[in-house]
């Protein structure tokens, strides 16, 4: 097989437990985003536009949806004769059950896969970030600096720095110190979870780390510090642009709102960097005579008869006459019945909201659906459930099944 310069490995095994009911049945990278995308579309699209055509997607938790979604990789132009996209679940070998113990362990178990392509570089990506990035520029930087590893970083607000892996680099970009989630950050340059490694060196470090019983087998916690202490040349590549980890209900909601801001904080309408996805086979959407629609985005297969302001509406959604939907993110194939009122709600795929239901009402103390996962007044409704006519749901709630339960108690 022809040698491939760079193989990308996307870590898509995360459970995404902070997304609550959204990741009950699907892995986080398969969660819908922005009306017609799924989170994994962003790294896959970036790979495709960056000319990286050999991509391994490491799955583990609830992989079925992700597997069928990725398929042969055609939508991302990754159905190739040489290379292409491969879904790599953990497997059982003669000697052991290779369940991925950490991000580094996941790559370790796929050494054979990477070796098949004999690459010079391996690009390690996360399957749950929203951003547009040309990895070619980062690879050029890596080559120019003759680095063993290059880590993409961006400036974050100082007060949030302790949530990230923080890098201290010299003027040339050479990393001096790295601290995973430090209490007292020494800089505000945060790791974006995007790494380029020289494959030869990474392989050695992965093999050593595997033998280390005290290691948690994680890139941020183990591999990067080990490489640093081995005095391997590591560089920080500064990224400027929009990047968001959509790990929480609030950040997922916020990232959706960012695309409908005026002007958009994150612009998806870029003809030079179109976001690829498995497009639904649906007609253009219909806006009826009675509808009012402003500050929103709507996609194919929707039928809008109600009043929609400041929302992201995914494909196949119906909003009946008299319904009022504000500041909400509606996932595919949701049906919102007449006169329902929704404010700041994330509604999971295929759910039916009954007539006159009121969701997002002012908080009350004994809210049965209260959840610590739903903050900033957001309500999260599970997919494929029915919210009965006239139901009342208060702010900061998570509804798993109406009347049976939700919130933190279930």
């Amino acid at each position, binding site marked *: 097989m022809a040698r491939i310069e760079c193989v990308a490995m996307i870590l898509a095994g995360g459970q995404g437990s902070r997304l609550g009911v959204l990741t009950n049945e699907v892995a986080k990278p398969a969660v819908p985003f922005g009306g017609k995308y799924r989170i994994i579309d962003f790294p896959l699209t970036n790979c495709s536009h960056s000319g990286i055509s050999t991509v391994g997607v490491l799955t583990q938790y609830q992989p079925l949806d992700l597997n069928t979604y990725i398929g042969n990789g055609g939508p991302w132009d990754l159905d190739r004769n040489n290379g292409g996209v491969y879904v790599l679940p953990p497997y059982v070998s003669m000697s052991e059950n290779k369940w991925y113990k950490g991000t580094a362990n996941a790559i370790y178990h796929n050494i054979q896969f990477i070796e098949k392509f004999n690459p010079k570089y391996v690009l390690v990506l996360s399957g749950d970030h929203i951003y547009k990035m040309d990895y070619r520029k980062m690879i050029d930087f890596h080559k120019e600096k003759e680095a063993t590893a290059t880590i993409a970083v961006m400036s974050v607000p100082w007060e949030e720095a302790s949530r990230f892996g923080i890098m201290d680099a010299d003027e040339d970009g050479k990393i001096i110190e790295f601290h995973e989630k430090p209490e007292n950050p020494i800089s505000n340059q945060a790791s974006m979870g995007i790494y380029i490694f020289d494959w030869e060196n990474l392989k050695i470090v992965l093999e050593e780390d595997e033998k280390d019983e005290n290691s948690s087998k994680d890139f941020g916690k183990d591999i990067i510090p080990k490489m640093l202490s081995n005095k391997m040349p590591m560089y920080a590549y500064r990224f400027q642009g929009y990047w968001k980890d959509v790990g929480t209900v609030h950040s997922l909601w916020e990232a959706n709102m960012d695309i*409908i801001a*005026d002007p958009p904080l994150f612009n998806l309408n870029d003809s030079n960097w179109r976001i690829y996805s498995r497009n639904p086979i*649906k007609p*253009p959407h219909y806006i009826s005579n009675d509808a009012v629609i402003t500050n929103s*985005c709507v*996609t194919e297969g929707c039928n809008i008869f109600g009043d929609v302001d400041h929302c992201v509406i995914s494909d196949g959604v119906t909003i009946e006459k008299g319904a009022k939907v504000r500041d909400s993110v509606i996932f595919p194939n949701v049906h919102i019945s007449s006169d329902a009122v929704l404010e700041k709600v994330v509604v999971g795929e295929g759910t039916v909201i009954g007539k006159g239901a009121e969701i997002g009402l002012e908080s009350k103390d004994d809210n049965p659906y209260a959840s610590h996962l739903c903050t900033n007044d957001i309500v999260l409704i599970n997919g494929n459930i029915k919210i009965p006519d006239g139901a009342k749901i208060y702010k900061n709630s998570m509804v798993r099944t109406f009347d049976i339960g939700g919130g933190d108690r279930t």
Partner: protein
Amino acid sequence: MTNMIGLILSESYLQLNGLTDKRSVEALPIAGRYRLVDFMLSNMVNSDITSVGIVTKTKYSSLMDHLGSGKEWDLNRKNGGLHIIPPYSGRGIQGLSEGTIDLIASASSFIRRSKEDHIILSKGNIVANIDLKEVEKFHEENSADITLVYYESKEATNRDLGDHIVLEVDDNCRVRGIEIRPIRPKSRNVFMNMVLMGTGLLQYSIDEAYARGDRDFIRDLLIKNLSNLKICAYKFEGYVGFVHSVCTYYSANVDMLKEDVRREIFNSSRPIYTKIKDQVPARYGSEASVHNCLIADGCIIQGDVRDSIIFRGVNIGKNTKVSNCIIMQDSVIEAGCELKHVILDKEVTVRDGGRLIGDLTHPMIIDKGEVV
């Protein structure tokens, strides 16, 4: 499973003013994100037909660009798949083929290579969602030699019928008469230009007709054989939108604003496939006001839009009023404009304050790429 192949014949003599200057009628953009041919092609694919030929005649580059390898219709196959048959490919044809028989003859190697027993011949200028498996079942149940598909047009005037081929059908579904663009039509049964017949019979009939110098499929093959062959007619009950003029093009588009038509045509169990463009969802601005419109992905709408069909990637500026219009892909209507009864072809720009008013019976057409 079906035992059919499909053959779509280009309708190249139709002229729809500027709309068909650079493209054949099958390649006309329609219903916000489709090309006319998508409907017949999807009907074939949804009826489990995996081998489809499209016979082109002139101005076919737009059509070829749209169809590509046939991937979006699931027709990039090892066996069968999509075959685009260019003109000049028939035996002994020196110039451009002239009649339907020439068109079919140019596909004879495609027909001869197929192993299926039946062939569906169709034109590509019809909007309908039809299950061709039902037609095949009807054909077999009636032991027909040839089955023609028609619909009953109750509201059509004699003048409307004068644009069509009208069938006289008896109680046993046998075709007793065929009238081509009649002045005094004997029935309201409009032939949908869809024919199902044996592959072998078609091949034989075309060979014979060709040898005789016959050119026209309807006159020479159907009408002359009404008593020799068992020609039956299958009645289709659903929505039919024929596109053969600017007016019918306009009405086939705005018919999609009717909920029942939309529901039938875009029936999710028999979806209409088209080329994927990876456009973003449409965005509505703070001053947008949209009523009774079909809007495709990639649009940015900031003005007032009513009773219109807006294709992918259209930009409508602030304080602009658009009503009863068909705005094709990537057109830009800047701020403060007024458009009524207008068809904008692809990539048209209407500058600030532009005013374009057409009439329902004669919509104003602005050609592709123009700046107004």
